[in-house]
């Protein structure tokens, strides 16, 4: 194969993969810490997209500022959701947590999508681009928007990683994901950590939606593809494994690039499904292993 094609595929794959990684990390975090299979994750991507659209296109904010505002809005949305829905669920419904929480997010997804549709209609709210420029990488012309989006993803993921590894609160989050009782006894407020975690996950999704606004406009069902992609990545990488999600996101990005090139749109989905099936057959715990209790029942 021609070297330039490989380069091309690699670069586009990584650029896409970076955003996958961003979405997936949020998902892995929520699953690892709160044991919630989050099916409304895509809706926070959409929140980010809508807010960024309004901030940039309507209020004329500078792109970076618009994206930051969108991130803050999704963070807030996540925090509110957690306090409004998951906190009561924890208090009132002591039953089958994983199942109930999952169903709750399914209901939440439906509700949020309906709210989007009823508030903004089915219009596609997009922008042409944030920055009217392209940049040359390995001789390819790539839109600055894409590169900046990737950069934002890198910064966000890096920031999160540092936060989790080096700070007291980040350590507390990791502690809660590993042993709730131990964390409680160490003086960690579980409710607060869980709200924070969910808000962080939502913020990451919102960042994705905001930075990709030029490529993927805001509309009620815009969250479906990111949701599918992030769940795909998380399953392949290993449920609840945050670091795995990062690498997994990049890998899946490249995989999709390559399979799209080789097989075309329709069959690319089939290729993804085949990959998933193979994985579940041979390595159900994911490529990098799960961080949650166990894969087997």
């Amino acid at each position, binding site marked *: 194969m021609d070297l330039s094609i490989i380069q091309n595929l690699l670069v586009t794959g990584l650029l896409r993969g970076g955003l996958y990684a961003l979405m997936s990390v949020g998902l892995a975090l929520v699953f690892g810490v709160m044991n919630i299979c989050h099916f409304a994750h895509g809706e926070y991507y959409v929140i980010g997209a809508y807010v960024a659209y309004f901030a940039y296109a309507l209020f004329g904010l500078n792109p970076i500022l618009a994206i930051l505002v969108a991130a803050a809005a999704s963070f807030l949305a996540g925090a509110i959701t957690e306090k409004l829905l998951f906190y009561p669920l924890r208090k009132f*419904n002591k039953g089958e947590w994983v199942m109930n929480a999952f*169903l*709750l997010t399914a*209901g*939440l997804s439906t*509700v949020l999508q309906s709210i989007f549709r009823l508030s903004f209609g089915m219009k596609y709210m997009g922008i042409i681009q944030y920055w009217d420029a392209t940049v040359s990488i390995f001789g390819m012309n790539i839109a600055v928007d894409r590169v900046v989006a990737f950069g934002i993803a890198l910064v966000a993921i890096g920031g999160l990683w540092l936060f989790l590894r080096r700070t007291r609160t980040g350590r507390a989050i990791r502690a809660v994901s590993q042993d709730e009782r131990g964390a409680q006894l160490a003086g960690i407020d579980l409710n607060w950590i869980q709200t924070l975690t969910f808000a962080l996950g939502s913020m990451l999704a919102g960042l994705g939606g905001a930075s990709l606004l030029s490529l993927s406009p805001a509309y009620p069902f815009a969250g479906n593809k990111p949701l*599918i992609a992030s769940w795909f990545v998380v399953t392949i990488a290993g449920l609840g494994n945050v670091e795995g999600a990062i690498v997994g996101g990049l890998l899946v990005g490249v995989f999709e690039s390559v399979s799209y090139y080789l097989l075309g749109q329709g069959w690319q989905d089939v290729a993804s499904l085949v990959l*998933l099936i193979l994985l*579940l057959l041979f390595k159900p715990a994911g490529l990098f292993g799960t961080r949650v209790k166990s894969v087997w029942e």
Partner: protein
Amino acid sequence: MTTSEPAIPPRFRPIVWLRARLDNLGFSLPFLACVLILALSPLVVREAYLRRLLVTSLYFGILAMVFDFTGGFINAVNFGFAGFVGLGAYIAAILTFYFGINPWLAMLAALVASGLVGFLTGLLTLPLRGIYVSLMSWFVGMTLGALTSAWEKVTRGARGIIVPPLFESVTILHHFYILLGMLLALYVILRLIIRSRVGLAFRAIGQNYEVARASGVNPIKYKLINFTLSCAVAGMIGGYYAYFVGIVTPDLLDLGHTMEVMALSFIGGSGSLIGGVFAAFLFIPVFDSLKRLMQYRLLIYGLSLILIMIFYPAGLNGLYQKIKSVFKLPKRKKQ
């Protein structure tokens, strides 16, 4: 020494016996009354449009029941449910449209097809944590959806496949009674399965996997039976849908439809089988009568699901049980 019940006068004995038998089949007196009312409703409900509502409610009720068979008993949420229903619909539609195959045979084929896909999906994921089943069935449903849109040569894409009616001069009334019959038959069958040894295994697995395994129950086998069965029946009902509605389009496999069935099933009460039917008869006519509500349909389903999950996971069935216990009259012991 047992305290003896007052002896039943001879003329009541057959009634008591009948009641006990019906109870075993799952038909309590109130329920039987409901069935009767429903069966006779077309006498009162004359307009075709209202009758159609009844049929739609029946349709969703059956689907909710089938969904609950897995969701409520082996704790596996089939997130690609609409895909299996749609697969059945398309199989039936394709067989009849292209090959003129008899609808009932086509529905059988639909049952087999969906059952097969369900079997494979379950085989792959049931040994793993419950979430994998949901994930995989979600992906499978999505892929099936994508397939129906993309494989235009066979499925005619978005234009859909026109399906001839079930038989000449079929009316809404026919559909109503056929579906009602299916509902009752399925209810009895599923209930008998639940109450059999197989069903005991389901519930043991659902409640405590480790203990079930330790007591010699092979969980995978039973989960697989359950999941396959539920997918198969879903496919068959999907097949029926094709003949009832007359056209099959790719949006049939949308996630939204899974959500509807899922919401009805959980609002009705997970594990009750019949709760979803009541939920269907509650929500669907209401949505229809308040036309404006149709837009908000999914929103209301979602909200209801959320509220039920948080505050009243037992659903309608739980409510019913509570009411029953309030009104509990000293019952005669079963003979």
